[in-house]
């Protein structure tokens, strides 16, 4: 005890801190890496092999899988669609959740109830709630088309049209994730110092000017956070597509992540799944990195 105590006193504050930090961090990082980093390395190596998980070991094929990826337009189309469909979902979610947050930022006895209600769709697994959408969207006797018929409208064959399938994917996505985003926005809105608005009122600034010069700058970090996490989320989005449209009509709503999932665990083309997810991972990291750069730049300007 005595010896240790003296030693600690001799060490500089910085040395003491770094020792303690390593003692806390390293065991955990080591343990986490076993379960995550190791499979990732195995997975990345798979991208350079041909492997169907049935017989024998992975066969090294070099860059063949990557050549297939860039050689055929099919995978590129899927990557592009992942970006634009994900982008649409993200934009719809960000805009609608912001409007929702503005609506929730009004003091009223019922506000708590409304806030809870909009969050609830997010607490159930997507697989559990998608059944309702499937039952409603049945082209022939689904609830929606039966309703249209009863008011004398032509039924819509949803699964024939890319537009409607993307539309419903967006609805399902936004329905599930608008609540949490709105609550983050709300947190941001409420963290803005109220005295700023009072001062603006005294100076005779209009509501619109207040939004322009107080609300928006005050929410910069929040919006960056929502965009960044949302971006990473939609670049990996596939469960919504799988549950609502199965990529139909005829592959027109298929996205790269869904392709990777099917390559990996449906057709067991493990090599291709590895290569495609490496590429998707790199693209995502690149986009996230750019977004991160922009945020930290904003931070410095502050």
């Amino acid at each position, binding site marked *: 005890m005595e010896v240790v105590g003296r030693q600690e006193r001799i060490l500089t504050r910085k040395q*003491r801190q770094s020792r303690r930090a390593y003692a*806390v961090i390293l*065991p955990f990082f080591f343990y986490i890496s076993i379960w995550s980093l190791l499979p990732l390395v195995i997975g990345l190596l798979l991208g350079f092999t041909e492997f169907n998980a*049935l017989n024998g070991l992975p066969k090294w094929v070099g860059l063949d899988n990557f050549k297939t990826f860039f050689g055929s337009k099919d995978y590129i189309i899927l990557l592009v669609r992942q970006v634009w469909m994900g982008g649409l979902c993200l934009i719809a979610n960000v805009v609608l959740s912001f409007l929702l947050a503005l609506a929730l930022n009004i003091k009223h006895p019922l506000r708590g109830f409304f806030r809870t209600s909009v969050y609830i769709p997010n607490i159930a697994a997507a697989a559990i709630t998608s059944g309702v959408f499937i039952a409603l969207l049945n*082209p022939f006797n689904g609830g929606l088309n039966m309703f249209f018929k009863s008011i004398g409208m032509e039924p819509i064959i949803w*699964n024939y049209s890319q537009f409607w399938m993307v539309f419903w994917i967006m609805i399902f996505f936004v329905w599930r994730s608008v609540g949490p985003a709105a609550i983050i926005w709300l947190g941001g809105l409420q963290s803005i110092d109220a005295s700023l608005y009072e001062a603006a009122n005294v100076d005779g600034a209009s509501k619109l000017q207040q939004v322009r010069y107080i609300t928006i700058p005050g929410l910069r970090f929040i919006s960056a956070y929502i965009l960044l996490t949302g971006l990473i989320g939609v670049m990996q989005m596939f469960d919504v597509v799988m549950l609502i449209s*199965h990529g139909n*009509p005829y*592959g027109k709503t298929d996205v790269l992540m869904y392709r990777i999932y099917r390559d990996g665990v449906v*057709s067991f083309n493990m090599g291709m799944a590895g290569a495609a997810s490496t590429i998707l991972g790199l693209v995502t990291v690149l986009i996230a990195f750019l977004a991160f750069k922009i945020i930290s730049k904003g931070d410095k300007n502050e």
Partner: protein
Amino acid sequence: MKKLIAMVLACIMVLTMTACGAQKDDVAETDKTTETTKETTTETAVEPTKEAEKSTEIIHLVAPKTGFTEEQMQLEKDNAAANNTKIGPGAQFYFDVTAKIAEQYPNYEMEYVDWGWAETLDQKQRSLILSGNAPSIVAGETFMPVYASSGMLEPLPQDIVDMVNPSFLIYDPEGRPVSVAYKSSVFLLFYNKTLLKNAGLDPENPPKTWDEWKQMSDAVTASGNGEIFGGGVPSFPHAGGSLRATPFFRQMGVDFGGGSTINLTDPKLQETLQYIRDMNANFPAGLGNNSDEGPLWSEFQDKDKGTIAFAVNGSWQKGAMIDNGHDWGVTALPLPEGGVVGNCMVGAVYVGVPITAEHKEDCFNIIRVLLDTEIQKNWLKEGTPSALNIYIDSSAEYPEDITLQAAADALKSGTIKGLTTFNKNDAQVWEIINTKVLARTTMTNDPIDTICNEAQAEIENLLK
């Protein structure tokens, strides 16, 4: 500092202890098993023949689709009780198999697993094979030829091969039978006589050719005023679509290809696609190519519905038609002009034994129970052809059943294959055929040769 290290150490220790504890548990379990084995050995030690010793060895077998777990049994019983019916013959088959294995092989410790069907089952099995833990028996339908062609299945013993119709076997690349379906069906044309009568057609004279069928179906649709439809060839954007389209291609003497070729550019194949597109007009919009098959069957067979006159389905369709009191008929699929008889195996449950499995002979014993003459009668009751030669060659067991007779005729007429398989990326190629060829044909008015050429290029890239 010291306390921190102590804490981390404690964490690690807790973890190791849980890990070791688990290992101890396992060891204890093995101990128990050895103990029970010992006990039984001492009991039977009175007659110490080798045979007896062998039969008391506890053999643990993991097998999907060969019997029922307690949960599944309970579920079936509950369902039957809730609907006030007896347990259906399809479920009764698994009850009987489970009972027979327990009776005949008391030393088998059976682990009947419920891993779902289709993709889910494939995923589960491949993951286990991959990790070197292959189950004792693998089961499946569309992906079993892929397993067989990879050479991972043990050849079947001759006595099993002799028992069954060759249509029910799958062969490995060396031509040895490695997997057998203990039941399978073929496609037939079911029709609703009431609807045909109402449309002024002769209900006792079902269509024999494509043209006749189209005329009759069109007539039903035309007189149905948007309420009643004739029905056509479904083109569901999954295996359910390609399974039903395949017999029609085979009737024209073509198929999608197979191995490392794809022949979507074949004019006869495109002609068939045109027919499928024409027939789709006789479905209510969006029903014949929905990814959920359920609504179509419910329109055809449900008691208060019955709004579709014709349906292409496996012989199991019979059950629902009888239960719901329809006036119905069944016939072989109509033929194109100058066509040949063609069909496709559907609703099959193939089983096989992986090369890596332990106790292979015991696994084959399980398959022998599955093919038991008495237990197989359950399938006949359900209206599904049994794999056994005795039930296909003679219809003595089902003299009244026109559905089964039609199916047996189809089976006797030649070896019927399941869906063709591709050497590489099989599942992905089929997905393109299902969605970008079949479903697109009926969903859009794009020229058929454009559809085919685009898909051909995409698939060729996958087969390279």
